[in-house]
């Protein structure tokens, strides 16, 4: 078994409105950061996992995202894996 670290990024689908992102953008503007054109808020997970190979790690992280970590109705996911 080898140790891997997976970085998972969950974001709302582009078609889904993001009131939290809008509110944060408003706050940044109030703080003087006029240059901010948009903010999208999402989730970030760091997983430490053991797997036989990086391919296997990739496969199981993909499944974990599809089955649990992301809500397919309103969210999308990306991830990258480091052999640690």
């Amino acid at each position, binding site marked *: 078994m080898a140790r891997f670290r997976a970085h998972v990024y969950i974001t*709302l689908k582009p078609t*889904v*409105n993001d*009131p939290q992102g809008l*509110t944060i953008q408003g706050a940044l503007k109030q703080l003087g950061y006029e240059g901010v054109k948009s903010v999208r808020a999402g989730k970030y997970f760091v997983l430490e996992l053991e797997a036989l190979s990086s391919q296997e790690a990739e496969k199981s992280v993909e499944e974990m995202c599809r089955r649990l970590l992301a*809500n397919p*109705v*309103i969210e999308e996911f990306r991830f990258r894996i480091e052999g640690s």
Partner: protein
Amino acid sequence: MAPGMDRERLLEAIALTRAEYQLIVQRLGRHPNEVELGMFGALWSEHCGYKHSKVLLRRLPSQAPWVAVGRGEENAGVVRVGQGWCAALKVESHNHPSAIEPYQGAATGVGGIVRDILAMGARPLAILDSLRFGPLSHPRNRYLFAGVVGGIGGYGNCLGIPTVGGELYFEEAYSHNPLVNALCMGILPEERLVRARAQGEGNTLMLVGAGTGRDGIHGASGLASRTDPTGRFEELRPAVQVGDPFLEKLLVEACLDLAWNHPQWMVGIQDLGAAGLTAACVEAAARGGAGVEVDIARVPRREEGMTPYEVMLSESQERMLIIVRQGYEEQVGRLFQRWEIPWAIIGKVTGDGLIRVKDGPYEVACLPISILTDPPIYEGAGDMPPEVAAARAMDMASLPSPEDPAATLLALLASPNICSRRWVYQQYDQSVLNNTVVEAGADAAVLRIKGTPLALAIATDGNGRYCYLDPQVGGAMAVAEAARNVICLGARPLAITDGLNFGSPERPHVYWHMEGVIDGMAQACRALGIPVVSGNVSLYNETGGQAVYPTPVVGLMGLIEDVYRIPRPGSAKPGDEVYLLGPGPALPPQSLGGSELLAVMGLAPRGRPQLDLQLEDRVQKAALAAMKEGIVRTAHDCSEGGLAVALAELCLREGLGLEAP
């Protein structure tokens, strides 16, 4: 929705039949263009048009001296409760979106029902949630249950409105189609009553709140008006969106600031719910007997490149339409500015009875309001399903009596349909706004009206299994039980809002249940003297031809004259005597029809539930009279699980034992 899509696929997408299309062409005298057809699809949908239920709903009594705004008139029903105060009441369903995305589906359901109460100029006082899922043994149902409860709490708690009651059932019949009904109750001084009427030629239409996006396109006509033979809802996923309770809280405060402090600046407030801007403008104009002109180029958007069709049908949440009195636009704009809410003038009231939609210089739609608000009405034909006839015929006398009654009682108390609901309501704020006298967990919640001795008791009830076996008796029991629940807290039943949930009305078996439930409710309302002041009908709750139980959700509000002298949970003392009012304790086996006992014994529903309305009325009046005399410390009603469970629950609640001969 690609422009130029051929008519056939467009009709299918907006759930209009060919015959309905022909009717439009005939009444209009021409073919409607694409935007116009979309508007018809929305307003002639089952959700907005009540095509299959209007005939039956007329049977429900809706008049009483204390009714200020009755059923079908406005966004919510309003009743006078005394000392110059009125209460607004409405229940709404968000079943289909919650089946797709439970958290946001339920959350936006709460947002919608709160805006209906707000549109009457009422301060929202309490929220109740009436929920039904498939058995918890199935992971999908656990996911839906946790998501819906999370969404209701997430939205309601952020609004700062207490969620103080409701009901919860788990039945196989709801596995593919959970029911999520949300009720809201609000109060207002009678002179601040607002009507959602676009009237007064030249008055201004002002859209306030969130930006408009492509959310929920076909929400009204797509989701809620179609059965789902192959799980096709997945395709309409963008129909569900993320609610913004923060913006809605600002909307609540701003609209009440306008309605209570500056009523002379406006003539009406209308919520944007199903069918978005189309329904809001048309319904407000219809009530005001006027016309409207809307320029969608001035509608603030959240996405680029939206077509007129999309802007008129978008169901983006947290938006309200204000009909501003001519000349006060600046003051109203400044008020919403002060509350940091975006606003935009999007049109005006006209006198020609038309809705005229413009996109800058171009006119994209022009339709008579009278045709849009007059969809075809269908009367169905009912037919008792054979499996119901069979279940009713089963002999109840031959039922084995449980060998170990104690173990059976424990099994009943542990059954998901009876056990404690604390896991749910401890996630809901119970006491914000400092009005909650009796919190969730009692027979009904009680909320006081500050500055008066008055209080309002509120409960919801409705057993789908009873209605499945006998719709008449089931419908009547829903009303009777809701009345009993508020009476347990010393309140006189005052008004009902009903959330009706059925399968496809085009199927005779479903129509037989629907007609029976409504007749039964009407009978009980007349016998107990309680008017129905508002409601909602949700149809097509079925998947693959399998419909949910016929499920009426009866939200009932009662009036307490003196909140300091009501029976309250936790006030029984050792030595107090316990009285049973009504039939029993020995009852014929038929009274076990559709009971929870049978379910716990693993038996399929059978028999026919029983109810004697005249006796029910006498029991309720006697209980109230005893409470007025001040001789009742606390009370509880018999429902699922019967007398044994009622006595056990009473002991658990009061922390005392019981000796029964």
